[in-house]
């Protein structure tokens, strides 16, 4: 599904290399987790994959189902099926959450040459999905993320993901700021989307989320590289011992 090869990325504005040769393949139907110390480049990787400005790819490639991603505009990547659940979802005053969702869903459908959803069909689907995430009608009406609590913002990200049905879901610390119940809701939302045709890349610091969303593969990122890859037991090792041992091992 997602294939990242030898990806090198520096900041556009300054001479600072952040990703230093990332290699990573996420197969369709699989959940991969990325863990790693603060500042190791996890969010940067997610931004570069989804097309944020400010980064320069100096080497390497990233493809989704064989299509080269890195030359595309963010909206083109989205239409191909890339989705990033943001570590810090952005507030957009004056734009209703519902209007935003519908604009996004229909823009992607249009880009793919599919028919747009009618207002009533859309409403039906949103209401149903919002309900399972315990997002009430009021939150749907309010401006995007404005005045939402940390947990509400994260649930709203998952609602967007459920509506857009992407092929490749990248979740950047979706568990941060969630209480125990909200974590369960979010994990259920993610698990409901798990299927053969979809890949997941879950960035997290904690085992807790991975108790609910069971990963197939766990990667450890440090200083702009994947330094170790293993099974779910790797996350437990990090949880118990921190990164010191792993870092020492590869040094």
């Amino acid at each position: 599904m997602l294939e990242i090869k030898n990806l090198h990325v520096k900041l556009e504005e300054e001479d600072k290399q952040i990703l230093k040769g990332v290699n990573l393949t996420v197969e369709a139907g699989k959940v991969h987790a990325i863990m790693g110390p603060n500042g190791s480049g996890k969010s940067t990787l997610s931004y570069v994959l989804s097309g944020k400005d400010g980064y320069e790819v100096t080497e390497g490639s990233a493809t989704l189902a064989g299509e080269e991603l890195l030359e595309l505009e963010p909206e083109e990547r989205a239409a191909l099926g890339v989705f990033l659940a943001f570590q810090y979802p952005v507030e957009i005053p004056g734009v209703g959450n519902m209007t935003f969702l519908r604009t996004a869903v229909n823009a992607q459908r249009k880009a793919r040459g599919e028919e747009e959803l009618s207002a009533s069909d859309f409403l039906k689907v949103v209401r149903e999905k919002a309900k399972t995430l315990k997002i009430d009608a009021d939150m749907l009406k309010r401006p995007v993320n404005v005045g939402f609590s940390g947990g509400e913002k994260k649930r709203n990200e998952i609602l967007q993901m459920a509506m857009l049905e992407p092929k490749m879901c990248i979740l950047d610390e979706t568990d941060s700021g969630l209480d125990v119940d909200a974590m369960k809701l979010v994990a259920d939302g993610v698990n409901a989307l798990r299927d053969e045709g979809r890949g997941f890349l879950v960035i997290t610091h904690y085992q807790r989320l991975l108790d609910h969303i069971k990963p197939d593969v766990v990667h450890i990122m440090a200083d702009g590289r994947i330094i170790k890859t293993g099974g779910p037991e790797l996350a437990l090792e990090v949880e118990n011992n921190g990164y010191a041992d792993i870092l020492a091992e590869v040094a």
Partner: protein
Amino acid sequence: MALPELKQTTTEARLASLSLPTGGCLEGARRAAISRVQTTGLPDRRDEYWKYTRPDTFTAAEAPKAAVFDSGEEPMFDSFDRIKIVFVDGVFDPAASDDLTLEGVSIERLADLAAKDIHWSKDIYGVLEARGQSPVERPLAALNTGYATDGVVIHVTGRPSKPINLVYRHQNDSSDAILHHVVKVDSGAEATLLENGPAASRFNHVMEIDIADTGALHLVRAQGRDHELRTATHLFARLGRESVFKSFTLTVNGVLTRNEAVIEFLGDDAIAHVAGACVGDGDFHHDDTVFVTHDAVNCESRQVFKKVLRNGATGVFQGKILVKEGAQKTDGYQISQSLLLDDDSQFLAKPELEIYADDVACSHGSTSGAIDEDGLFYLRSRGVPEAEATDLMTLAFLAEAVEEIDGADIAASINDRLYGWLARRR
């Protein structure tokens, strides 16, 4: 003191082009206003108050031409249940207007007062305007008091069930309109007043608003879409105890617009919000000039102005909060922001605070910036194409001003107009 020669000549030429409506209870106020204009002269670019905006075309003897624009769309507020009062190029059109009777309010034509020797409006007409001449002169408003040909005189005595809508239509490409409205709101009374449309090629507008203790007035204006319009408006509002005044003005297009608001708190615990949103493209100069005087205790004033400027458009904001001695517990807020969509556009702002009381909370801020990149990326990452995402972020920028409008339907129609304007420029 004699006026500078050029100012004298301009003023005389302009006055000579007008004729004084005579008769009735307002003639004295008109004559007094004309002598104010003669004393101060009409504004020119050397006046400090007109530093950022050239008044020449407002003061010229003849109105410059302005092509009549037909959008082919339904005028704003047409779908509302309202009382419609239509002016065509500044002339009242009774056939196009609704019957003016409505419970809780009395509505009369200003022109009809020429036949009346006694009328309540005598205590307001030209009176609030004259108070507003100090500490800063506003000669265009005095000119209006002297020569206004028509307007409405509204006395709100209760809570009318629907809004009163002044509809301005522009049909003649060289029309020059001077309208003067008076609104008196009684204690406990409350009304909504809507104004929309391009009034004339050149439009000089004054509204004097007197709100008694515990009264409330909501004013929403949408200035027309014609491109070559020149519009100068003045709101003079005087607020009694626990009264509320909220105004919002939308400006799209128009080559030159100057909207002045002069607000005076005379009773304690009152609230006044003046807000505006404008979007301009190319040959567009838009000036909001606001003066709020706090002369009572525990009053709240908010000024929220947002401007979206592209292709060399210019935005101006001059806003002042004056807190007089004894006006303790004043809460004064002022924000003026512009979104510059390119390097050719500019925003000139002069925010001022002058405070003579010690227990007050006043803040002001003025910024110029570009589209919020994080928001833009967020929308695009969800598949929204860049152009549409830019429009949505532009609406997001304007939202703080639009949110000052109390009615959800009114706010929605303002947002639709803004979105349409942006979408046409994709």
